């Protein structure tokens, strides 16, 4: 599925300083029953965001109008648990294009890259700086620059480099996906399969 190309993103950010945000919180299993990729943003963080009578929980960050933006900033070990890509879909469909944390669970990180969300891993110290900057000014702007692989707090100019492999970076900047690549090397795959033991 096509996604928006990612180059430089300047946006305010939504803070979620909680560790081990698992994919059951991002999108509970009972909302995984769709056969199409539609409407998952409505149920993003469903049980943290809404009471059981569907009224919004006032103390949850997504219900607080002072916070908004295309960048979600989470605590350590973000996206742990289930492999459900629906978690990344929900984050994308809600409007986020970038998730920042000091540590991501592997499958969530891979799923995000595959659908056009940039996971940015920063040091614990820099993560703390971002949380403090948003706390001081919810409208503070953050720049995520993929070509330069930097994340910057624009108010102070404080910046940090982040890692991403060259192949995935190229894909994200151009909106490519892996299946195009795999289709182009079908001959190699067929030769490999022919020699397989199983």
């Amino acid at each position, binding site marked *: 599925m096509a996604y928006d190309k990612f180059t430089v993103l300047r946006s305010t950010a939504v803070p979620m300083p909680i560790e081990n945000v698992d994919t*059951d919180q991002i999108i509970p299993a009972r909302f995984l029953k769709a056969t199409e990729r539609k409407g998952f943003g409505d149920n993003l963080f469903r049980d943290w965001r809404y009471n059981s009578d569907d009224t919004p929980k006032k103390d949850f960050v997504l219900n607080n109008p002072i916070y908004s933006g295309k960048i979600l900033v989470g*605590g350590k*070990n973000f996206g742990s648990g289930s492999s459900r890509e629906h978690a990344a879909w929900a984050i994308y469909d809600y409007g986020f294009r970038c998730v920042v944390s000091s540590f991501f669970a592997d*499958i969530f990180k891979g799923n995000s890259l595959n659908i056009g969300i940039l996971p940015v891993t920063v040091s614990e110290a820099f993560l703390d700086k971002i949380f403090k900057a948003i706390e001081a000014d919810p409208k503070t702007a953050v720049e995520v620059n993929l070509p330069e692989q930097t994340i910057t707090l624009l108010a102070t100019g404080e910046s940090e480099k982040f890692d991403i492999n060259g192949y*995935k970076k190229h894909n994200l900047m151009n909106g490519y996906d892996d299946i195009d690549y795999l289709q182009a090397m079908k001959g190699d795959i067929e030769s490999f399969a022919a020699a397989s033991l199983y």
Partner: protein
Amino acid sequence: MSNKPSTLFDKVWDAHVVRSIPDGPDVFFIDRHFIHEVTSPVAFLGIENRGISVLYPQRTFATADHNTPTIHQDQPVKDPLSAKQLAALSSNAEKYGISIWALGSPKNGIVHVVGPENGITLPGMTIVCGDSHTSTHGAFGCIAFGIGTSEVEMVLASQCIMQPKPKKMRIVINGRLGKGVLPKDVALYIISQITASGATGYFCEYAGEVFENMSMEGRMTVCNMSIEMGARGGMIAPDETTFNYVKGRDKAPKGEAWDKALAYWKTLKTDAGATFDKELVFDAADIEPQITYGTNPGLGTGITHSIPKATEVKDGEASYKKSLAYMDFQEGQPLIGKKIDYVFLGSCTNGRIEDFRAFAKVVKGRKKADNITAWLVPGSHIVEAQIKEEGILEILNEAGFQLRQPGCSACLAMNDDKIPAGKYAVSTSNRNFEGRQGPGARTLLASPYVAAAVAVTGVVTDPRELLSEA
């Protein structure tokens, strides 16, 4: 072939790399692909929209499990959304010529139970599925891990995924497990020691006497839980226990093909002198029956211990307090004697025949506690048949328990098997996340022995007390 000592993981990984992309992932060939109704429909839509087909349909196997009811499976599925997903799985399988064990098939069951029991899972394979507990198959010396739906689409289209090679970790446990300690306790113990993210970025090999002496069912339980410490997967070198389990199974090789495969499988072990990025060593004697008290699987402890103080755990204080608040537990509170409402025996972690044998051993000659609602859900119809053949069903019925029909059930509560808000469940499944077993449900993860001890006493109970009486 190089003579450099190599790990089991490297041997299997390197044998499946079709191409290494410079400054990028490996194009990684997949021998077996399992699909189920929840994470596959959008992938099929994807290949349809691209106008391409399934490259190797005979390498993909479908089973319905996540969304299926565990009673009245002969009747139409009532929830229209679940019914639609199940229908999509069946029609996609039919359209592309993929083998399917749909609801009602005698081979139906949880994907990670039916794969091994039918010989679809074989040593040295690469196996993926849109489910994080695919790590289960690592018990056979496979590289097996969960993938997202984009990757399900890649495998359907090309039998490959793009995968950066993870780092390698080895966990060695020598010695003998004490009385009442099951493979689930070994897994929960490791996770409690290294946290729910302690192995993120790694693929783990389990080695040492504890795993060498473990049954295939036990090894599957341990490898299944690898993802709960953040590892992409876990694996155990195949040995005689593995070969004896595989031999004669429906789809296992036979005759000459068996001999050829066996000769290869015997090479699948870590050479002396091979190195890992990280090695951890634990002592079997330190492991007692475990139970979790928090909202991630790393928040567990020996059953006789009290809930630790915030200063004693590696999770941040705010997250830890949030976790205990959800559970309505206090720091320093003892676990033994805590009143429980529900017991769940089942899931891809503990839904195999050995788990039911263990549960039956404890409840035999006793009665279900009045305050307990117990859901006993076999992992497959084959497990269900074994339960009946071995006389376990009579023991369970005699003690006041009923058996449900196979499926993922209350492990993720996608069907009607939901623990009500605020209630406590001792569960043999794999995750105690907030709301995992139903909105507001409070889950304590444990072994089948602990689950059985709770089921007959109504409170958290050390199973060793009941086993010593038997």
